[in-house]
C-alpha cells in the first residue's frame, strides 16, 4: 500500500517500527508525482540524486542511535523553487533564472539535509513569489488537487498542491503577504508563517526582504510544528535572524485553549467574505469557545489600509532586490550592441508582467518627489498597523479569523490586479507586523476547502500551534484528503 497522504508523524513511526524504509517512502512520493503531476504541474524539477543520497543517509541515521535521527529523518519533502539548493536548478518561477544553478544552499534547506529529510524536488510558484494563484509562474499554472480547473492559491501554490495531492507529507514555501497561508487555505492543508526572522533567509531568493519568511505546509498541525522546528533558529548569515532561542513549538501542543482569550477582528469578518467562508469560520470559532476559550470581538481599524501599505512597501523592496538581474553575472542575457540595451532587453524578456508591474510601482514609489507621499507614508502606516496588533494583544492571547476571503477560484477567472491582491487582504497585515500566523482546514464550501487563520504576538509561534492543535484535535477536517490522492 502506498504511503501517499499519510502524515509525516505516521511515516516516522512506520520507519522506526521498520515497516517501511526511506527508499520506499521516496518511491511512493515519486510514484505519486509521476501519476499526478502531468495534470497538477506542482513540480518544476526533481532533485533525484540528492533525494537518493538523503534516503541512504536517513537509513544510516535510523540504524545508528548515535546519529540522532529526528522526526523528519527519511521523510520526503518538497521545496519552493525560491530556495537555493547547490547545483540544482532554482528558477523562482522566472525565465530570467531558467538555467541558474546556485553555488550554495539555503540555510533552511541545509538544516533539512542535516536532519536526514529527503528533498524530492523544487515546486512551482508565482514568479519571484509575486502572486496569489501561481498563475504568474513562467512555467505554467498549477492545478488545485480538489479541482484541477481551479488555482491552488499562491505564491507557494506548488508546495501547497504537493502536500494536498499526497506527493509529500511536508513542503516548504515562503510567505511575504500570505503566500503560505492563502494556498494552504485553498488546498485544504496546514500552512505556517513564522514570526519574521525565525527562519533564516540566507539562500532564499529575495522578493521583499522586510516581509519574506520561510515556513512549512503539512497535513497536521503537529507535522507543521515539527517541520518548523527543524528549520527555525538563529543564523549568523542572516542579519535579520532572531537571536532569542526558539521556544519548542511542540511544548504547548496538547495544552488546549481552556482559559485562553481569543479575539475575532471585526474588520476580518466584513463584506468581502464569501458566505461559505464566513459560515465555516464562525462554526470554527464556536468550536474553540466550546473547548473553553473566551471569544470576544476586537477591532483593528487600519486593516483596510494594509493592502495599500503592502503594495507600496513590497514593490519598493522588490524593485531594489530585482535590480541584480542584469544579465551580467548570472541568469539570462539578451545580447544587444550596447550594455544599456542589453539590460533593457534582458529584463523585458526575462520578467513576466506582474514582476514588471511591481518593479515599476516600486521605483515610482521610491523616486524623488514621490518618496514622501508613498514609501515614507506607507512605512508610517505600517507602524500604525503593528501598534494596533500590539494593543489588541493586551486584551487577547491570539486572534482567530478567516485566512482567505474566498475558496479556490477557477484558473483565469481573475484578470484585474487589484482584485487579485484582495485575496491577501486578511494575511498581509500579519506580515507587515512581523507576526506568526497559521492556516488550518476548517471545513468546506461547495466542496472546496476553507481555512481558519490563527495569529499570535511576535515570537509566540508556540501559541499559534497551541490554538491550532486544540481546534484540530476537536475536529476531523484535517483527515480529509482530495479524492485524487488515492490511486
Amino acid at each position, binding site marked *: 500500500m502506498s504511503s501517499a497522504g499519510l502524515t509525516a508523524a505516521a511515516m516516522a513511526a512506520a520507519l522506526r517500527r521498520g515497516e517501511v524504509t526511506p527508499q520506499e517512502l521516496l518511491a511512493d512520493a515519486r510514484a505519486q508525482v509521476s501519476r499526478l503531476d502531468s495534470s497538477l504541474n506542482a513540480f518544476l524539477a526533481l532533485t533525484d540524486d540528492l533525494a537518493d543520497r538523503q534516503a541512504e543517509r536517513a537509513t544510516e541515521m535510523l540504524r545508528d542511535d548515535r546519529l540522532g535521527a529526528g522526526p523528519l529523518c527519511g521523510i520526503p519533502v518538497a521545496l519552493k523553487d525560491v530556495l537555493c539548493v547547490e547545483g540544482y536548478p532554482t528558477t523562482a518561477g522566472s525565465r530570467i533564472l531558467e538555467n*541558474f544553478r546556485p553555488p550554495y544552499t539555503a540555510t533552511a534547506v541545509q538544516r533539512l539535509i542535516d536532519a536526514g529529510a529527503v528533498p524530492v524536488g523544487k515546486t512551482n510558484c508565482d514568479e519571484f513569489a509575486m502572486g496569489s494563484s501561481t498563475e504568474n509562474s513562467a512555467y505554467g499554472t498549477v492545478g488545485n488537487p480538489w479541482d484541477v480547473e481551479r488555482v491552488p492559491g499562491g505564491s507557494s501554490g506548488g508546495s501547497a498542491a504537493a502536500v494536498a495531492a499526497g506527493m509529500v507529507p511536508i513542503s516548504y514555501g515562503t510567505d511575504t503577504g500570505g503566500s503560505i497561508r492563502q494556498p494552504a487555505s485553498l488546498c485544504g492543508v496546514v500552512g505556517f508563517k513564522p514570526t519574521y526572522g525565525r527562519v533564516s533567509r540566507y539562500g532564499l531568493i529575495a522578493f521583499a526582504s522586510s516581509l519574506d519568511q520561510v515556513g512549512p505546509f503539512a497535513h497536521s498541525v503537529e507535522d507543521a510544528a515539527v517541520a518548523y522546528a527543524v528549520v527555525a533558529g538563529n543564523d549568523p548569515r542572516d542579519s535579520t535572524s532572531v537571536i532569542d532561542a526558539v521556544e519548542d513549538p511542540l511544548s504547548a501542543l496538547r495544552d488546549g485553549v481552556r482559559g485562553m482569550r481569543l479575539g475575532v477582528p471585526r474588520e476580518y469578518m466584513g463584506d468581502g467574505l464569501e458566505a461559505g467562508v464566513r459560515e465555516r469560520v464562525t462554526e470554527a470559532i464556536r468550536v474553540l469557545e466550546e473547548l473553553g476559550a473566551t471569544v470576544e470581538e476586537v477591532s483593528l481599524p487600519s486593516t483596510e489600509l494594509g493592502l495599500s501599505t503592502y*503594495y507600496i512597501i513590497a514593490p519598493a523592496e522588490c524593485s531594489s532586490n530585482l535590480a541584480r538581474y542584469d544579465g*551580467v553575472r548570472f541568469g539570462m542575457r539578451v545580447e544587444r550592441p550596447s550594455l544599456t540595451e542589453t539590460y533593457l532587453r534582458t529584463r523585458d524578456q526575462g520578467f513576466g508582467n506582474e514582476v514588471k508591474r511591481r518593479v515599476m510601482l516600486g521605483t515610482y514609489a521610491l523616486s524623488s518627489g514621490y518618496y514622501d507621499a508613498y514609501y515614507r507614508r*506607507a512605512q508610517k502606516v505600517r507602524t500604525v498597523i503593528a501598534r494596533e496588533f500590539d494593543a489588541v494583544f493586551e486584551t487577547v492571547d491570539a486572534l482567530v479569523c478567516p485566512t482567505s476571503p474566498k475558496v479556490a477560484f477557477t484558473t483565469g477567472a481573475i484578470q484585474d*490586479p487589484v482584485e487579485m491582491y484582495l485575496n491577501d487582504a486578511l494575511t498581509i497585515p500579519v506580515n507587515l*507586523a*512581523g507576526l506568526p500566523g497559521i492556516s488550518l482546514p476548517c471545513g468546506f464550501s461547495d466542496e472546496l476547502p476553507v481555512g481558519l487563520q490563527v495569529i499570535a504576538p511576535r515570537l509566540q509561534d508556540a501559541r499559534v500551534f497551541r490554538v491550532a492543535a486544540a481546534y484540530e484535535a476537536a475536529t476531523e477536517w484535517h483527515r480529509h484528503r482530495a479524492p485524487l490522492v488515492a490511486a
Partner: protein
Amino acid sequence: MGADLDRILDHVSALQRADISDVPETAQVGALVNVWREDVPAGSLSQEQALANAPDTDGEYFKVGAIQE
C-alpha cells in the same frame, strides 16, 4: 500595463487619508539592534564558482558589451 498601474495607484491612494502625524516609520519589525559579528576571515566562492552561471566570460572575468562608444 498603464491602465493596471493607474488602477493600483488609485487603490493605494487610500494611504493619503491615514492619520500618521507623529508616527515613526517602521525600519524593521524585529527588536534587533546592531547585529555584530567577529571579523573572522572565512572562505568565499571560488572564481570558478562565481563565473559558473555567467552568460559570458573570458575564463577569468564576466564579459559584457562595450560600455563606451
